[in-house]
């Protein structure tokens, strides 16, 4: 295969994908009478036009990255974690509990302690589907979906009961939320006038950590082996159930960390809706990033951009908020399909031989003429 053909093929496929994305979105946008081109331009460029936009994208990148890293560990170990929403909620509860219990600890102690607690909370919630799968053969797809609902209820229970903001009782209406957590828990917002906080560095640090864990240590090797081929791993002396549970706990723990950091960096108190669907977007980011930290970081940035940019459209182009989801959906569908097309040498070869045949015919004709 010539290099020129390869490049041309790639560019062609990508152009085609862009056109299809535009067309699919256009059908819906056209139906509701919105400006198609402008909508897309807003999504993809508007967030990058100023400091606030870029930092807001980075802000979303933090939980997306951390959750996607966790999902990667689970996925690589042979377990699909769609329970990150619930694990994140449990992490938030644990962090909140610590912050409420020890408001006077200095930041240097409290922050690691609270994040660790968040990790433990998430890991505990991740342990359940891990254990159920490893020991009782309960599909994690079932248990994690169900556990998300259970976690959501537990979350309101705690925020409405033991952790409720006292001010809500005296001056409010009992909206389920905790009080403003101690300032000692606040992660530094290092660019004035924006919300971007030091959790970004934690996320990057965790990405390095996961890379080392999965590809440079024997633990990671065993987890990946268990995920890639359970039988072979068992044959190789790897305790598959054990690593399955550990992987799921790491995965849950990371979701928990993401929750902690959201609280400490963005919201400063536990409120409803913090999980924001990150648990699901995290799966997309993980897979999109090729289940590898090096891919997850850019993928998380891209999805942060997508989420934030699509959210801006309702204000700048006037499309309904639901359109955010439509566009995200389309972009995901087209991108995954495109990735597979690009990665399919068989298809590329077929196209090339078609082209070759056409070229041959043409040169034949020329010769005859």
């Amino acid at each position: 295969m010539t290099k020129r053909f390869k490049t041309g093929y790639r560019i062609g496929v990508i152009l085609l994908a862009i056109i299809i994305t535009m067309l699919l979105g256009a059908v819906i946008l056209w139906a509701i009478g919105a400006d198609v081109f402008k909508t897309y331009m807003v999504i993809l460029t508007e967030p990058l036009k100023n400091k606030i936009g870029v930092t807001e994208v980075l802000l979303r990148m933090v939980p997306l990255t951390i959750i996607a890293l966790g999902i990667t560990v689970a996925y690589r170990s042979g377990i699909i974690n769609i329970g990150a929403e619930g694990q994140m909620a449990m992490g938030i509860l644990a962090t909140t509990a610590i912050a409420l219990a020890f408001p006077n600890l200095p930041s240097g102690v409290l922050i690691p302690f609270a994040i660790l607690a968040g990790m433990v909370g998430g890991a505990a919630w991740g342990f359940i589907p891990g254990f159920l799968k490893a020991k009782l053969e309960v599909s994690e797809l079932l248990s994690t979906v169900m556990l998300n609902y259970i976690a959501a209820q537990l979350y309101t229970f705690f925020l409405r009961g033991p952790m409720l903001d006292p001010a809500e009782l005296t001056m409010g209406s009992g909206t389920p939320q905790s009080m403003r957590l101690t300032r000692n828990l606040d992660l530094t917002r290092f660019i004035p006038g924006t919300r971007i906080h030091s959790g970004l560095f934690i996320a990057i640090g965790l990405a390095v950590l996961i890379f080392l864990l999965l590809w440079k240590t024997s633990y990671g090797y065993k987890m990946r082996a268990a995920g890639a081929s359970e039988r072979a791993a068992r044959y190789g002396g790897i305790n598959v159930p054990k690593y399955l549970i550990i992987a799921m706990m790491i995965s849950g723990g990371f979701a928990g960390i993401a929750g902690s950091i959201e609280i400490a960096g963005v919201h400063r108190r536990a409120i409803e809706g913090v999980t924001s669907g990150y648990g699901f977007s995290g799966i997309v980011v993980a897979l999109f990033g090729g289940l590898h930290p090096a891919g997850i970081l850019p993928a998380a940035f891209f999805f942060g951009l997508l989420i934030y940019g699509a959210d801006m459209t309702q204000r700048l182009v006037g499309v309904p908020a639901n359109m955010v989801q439509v566009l995200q959906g389309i972009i995901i569908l087209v991108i995954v399909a495109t990735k597979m097309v690009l990665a399919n040498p068989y298809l590329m070869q077929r196209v090339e031989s078609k082209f070759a045949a056409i070229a041959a015919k043409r040169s034949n004709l020329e010769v005859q003429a």
Partner: protein
Amino acid sequence: AAEKEADSDVIKIALIIENTIDDKGWCQAMHDGITLAMEQNPGRIEYSYSEKMKPVDAGSAVLQYAGQGYDIIIGHGAQYKNLITEMAAEYPDISFAFGTSSEIVGPNVFSYMPESEETGYLNGLIAGMLTKTNTIGLIGPVDGGDAARYNRGFVLGVKAVNSAANVMVAHTGSFSDFVKATEVAQSQIRSGADILTGSSQQALGGLRAVADYRDKDIWWVGQDLAQIGIPEGYKVLSASSYNYAAVINTLVKKMDAGIVGGENIPMNFNNDGFVFKFNEATKSKITPAIEAKVNEALAAFKGQAGHASVVNWSSVKYN
């Protein structure tokens, strides 16, 4: 600053809501209030809203609005309290508002507090007096916020007129899952409930389930006036609404007077924050005794400054 001077009589309002402007509940009430206030103050108000704002998105929206020179940014829900507090500190030149709360969180932040137990109480009176089975259904979303106040007021209303009545309280666990609310209503009706109520947008599901009993003596008392107007209205006996236009008008007045925050705006019958109405189409169901009782309570709410003597919502415990 010069620019600001030029269009000083136009107030730019930005609204951040968790649901949509047409959710027939909490968010729509505010949206309708703002649009009504715009009509009442022609040319005075410019308005933009952001729907379906999760907590993190709400922050982005505030930053964006702040950059665009909005004068008042409203976070419609107590969950935005922290965000508003922080942003108010960051942007001292802009006014902010949030509710439900009576907390004062900054010199440039208004809070507003619908005392919904009043509306619940009125509906409770009707339910308590009208029930034949002495079983009343109450469909709660989550036991918190505005809904918690409404629901508890309702229970107090029932108890005030009918100590034998049993209020079945059930929560769906979600503000928006009206399918579950339907299921709750069906369950309560099967268990004998003949008057039902509920709050937040999920409550519509409850009304919808009641509406299926077209020819039965099963009725709905609503928390939103809009419910009277919809096809299922034939089942609604009464409803009340928030009059957010009054809140907005107050805000506009205060801004004009140079007050940029630091105050709480309560909402109750006393200050016309609520409107209560019987449904004319079903008025035949309302006996004079009921009407008298309701009017008596209404007068009490309107007359007195402190309604707490009538309804102390936080005294009600059902779980």
